[in-house]
């Protein structure tokens, strides 16, 4: 899968069908490409309507004053000018960056560690794999509800254990403005690690065992093996996991929406850009501006992703 990231396309025989420019396509080749296109047409139309058309419509709206209803009027760059001096937008951006800086290393790190552990010959590996995968198949809203109760200042189990069990003062997990963002980031890590762990596990399985055997013969320790064999050969998978996780965390919304009320002070210290978009579009009905916010988020995410793709050549080893 990660090979697709580097622009290699393979047909079913495993041969790349990227042709040399100028070479005339054989009729057999043309037929193959044509039938491939036909198979993916329904999907392409779906994506075309719900992604591309929607995207360009949204881009258009960002230049209008689309509000409640009625026809949107074109107002040029006015929304973007407002955006540049919008304190709440930058607050949301700062919060989102914090989420990325905290949650992404957490998710990727935990995914790698748990995958490495599960890859080893330990008893009940399959059982633990299933257990650790459960967050991946649970709805984010269900996870948020559960954690909201765990974190509850008065009756949540964390504080009950702290105060009644250990005699420590209660912690304002979701009510302390310095802490709430990190509490929610912890929930994100808990819930998003599983999917990435499975991907890393698959990547680990793809590393031929002979390397490890050879290293063992040469007297390498476990950590050296990890650093010099596992990491480089895992790097395509890791790259994919990092890129996808960054994109996902930039778009985080459900956890924040479910765990904090809009009247809570901590919401202002924890709201993400997508939450701000939601507030503008569905609470304030200021949809033109909401489109602008979403476009800003798009630009940020795509810049970071493109940057990562460029650095791919430096970071990732493909064989």
């Amino acid at each position, binding site marked *: 899968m990660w090979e697709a990231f580097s622009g290699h396309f393979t047909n079913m025989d495993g041969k790349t069908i990227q042709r040399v420019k100028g070479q005339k396509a054989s009729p057999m080749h043309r037929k193959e490409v044509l*039938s491939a296109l*036909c*198979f993916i*047409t*329904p999907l392409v139309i*779906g994506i075309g309507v719900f992604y591309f058309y929607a995207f360009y419509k949204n881009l258009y709206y960002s230049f209008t004053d689309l509000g*409640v*209803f*009625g026809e949107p009027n074109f107002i040029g760059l006015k929304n973007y000018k407002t955006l540049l001096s919008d304190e*709440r937008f930058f607050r949301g951006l700062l919060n989102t960056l914090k989420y990325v800086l905290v949650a992404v290393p957490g998710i990727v790190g935990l995914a790698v560690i748990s995958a490495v552990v599960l890859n080893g010959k330990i008893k009940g590996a399959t059982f633990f794999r299933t257990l650790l995968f459960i967050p991946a198949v649970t709805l984010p809203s269900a996870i948020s509800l559960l954690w*909201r*109760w765990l974190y*509850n*200042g*008065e*009756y949540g189990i964390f504080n009950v254990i702290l105060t009644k069990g250990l005699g420590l003062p209660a912690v*304002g997990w*979701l*009510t*302390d*403005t310095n802490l709430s963002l990190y509490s929610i980031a912890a929930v994100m890590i808990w819930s998003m690690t599983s999917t990435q762990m499975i991907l890393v596990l698959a990547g680990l399985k793809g590393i031929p065992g002979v390397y490890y055997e050879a290293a063992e013969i040469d007297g390498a320790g476990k950590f050296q093996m990890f650093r010099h064999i596992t990491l480089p050969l895992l790097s395509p998978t890791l790259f994919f996991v990092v890129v996808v996780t960054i994109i996902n965390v930039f778009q985080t919304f459900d956890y924040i929406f479910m*765990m904090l*009320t*809009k*009247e*809570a*002070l*901590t*919401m*202002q210290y924890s709201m993400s850009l997508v939450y701000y978009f939601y*507030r503008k579009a*569905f*609470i*304030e*009905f*200021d949809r033109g501006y909401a489109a602008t916010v979403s476009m800003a988020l798009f630009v940020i995410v795509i810049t970071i992703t493109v940057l990562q793709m460029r650095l791919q050549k430096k970071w990732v080893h493909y064989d």
Partner: protein
Amino acid sequence: MKRKMMWLLVTVLMVASFAGCGKEDVKEVTTVASTEEKETEAAQVAPRDNVVLTLGIWDTNQEAALQETLDAFNAMHPDIEAVIELTPWDNYWTKLDAAAMAGLTTDVFWMNIYMPKYVNGGVLKALDGYIEKDAVDMSAYVEDVTAIYNFKGEQWGMPKGVDAITVLYNKAIFDKYGVAYPAEDWTYEDMVAIATELKAKIDEAGGDEYALGMSPYSQDGYFNYIFQNGGEIISEDGMTSGFNQEGNQEAFRKMIHLYETGLSAPYEVLANYDTNASALFASGKIAMSYVGSWMMPVLENSPLSADGNFGIVEMPSQNGTRTSVMNGLAYCMSSQTKHPDEAWELIKFLTGEEGNKIQGVAGIDIPALTSAQHYYGEAYKNLEVAPIFSAIETGRRYPTGETVARWSPVMEDYVARMLGGAISVEEGCAAIFEEMQGIIDSAK
């Protein structure tokens, strides 16, 4: 041959997937009928049904009683069939907006304080003509609720219900600590004194109850304090923000004092989904709490109520006044309806004596029709509802305006900062005034 079969399969799959797509789109666009509606349609197979009216609502708790009302209406009008179309609150406004643009709204629908934007968008049909033609006595309804739905000199909605704020108290806690119940004509100072006594006794006994639940939300919290301290949220004509008034600052100062002295449960606790004032009160953790009358159906069924430990009293007066904020829903008619006369008949029935009797008896909403309000009182065994009606008499309507959807979140932002201690009351009110006035001005 194999290749031809593949092509055939692909074509069939494509056609099937598009057909499936189409059906799904149609499903999403057409009305979501309740199961009762299907039963009603099956039961009333009168061949003369030639007008179908749709009623848009959002509250599942009220659906059964409203269906009963529609059944009665349909029985009275053999040539009309009214059905409910319920859209959950989270999607109601989005769907209404989308439907308005597409010309597919229901004939009649619930409306709240967001009404001005719909009037400006041309979505509603003014009802003055019908009111006059049928000589409907508008003074029979709670005046402040009627006023909410009067905009730019025309009446756009018929009042459905009214909700008011009172103080509920937990007799069991009062008895446990030996404190006297609140008196009917108590003042804010009385409340502070009672709460102080309670808190002292609770602390002494090592209990974990709170004396007071001062809600940090607008309707059951600070709007009332603002009114009672001579402040304003927005001017009568909706053109000026009221947050430059001293009364507003005083209101917040009083609330913060309650939080800081520990008389009330802390702001952070009450600003939570799970531990808001009503929830904590219902679980017996708060001795006195400001609660909205919309919580009555929930509280009626709580253990607190079954044990007869429910006390209810009007809010304590501040500066000699108990003015509280009132709100109420209304029935509006779509400007796009093909059957305005029939839609008016439905609205008239729903807001008339019969419709209000059904909703009052079911206890789903306090009728805005004053003569029908006594039915609501009969619906509640464990609750004394008289204080709610007293609050309605002295209440003022929920502040609204054309841009309410835009300045409400701004106001809530700064209120959160004030109550949470991040900024001073002076700074907060000044900031609200500046931004709110800016929003109001930009819409002119």
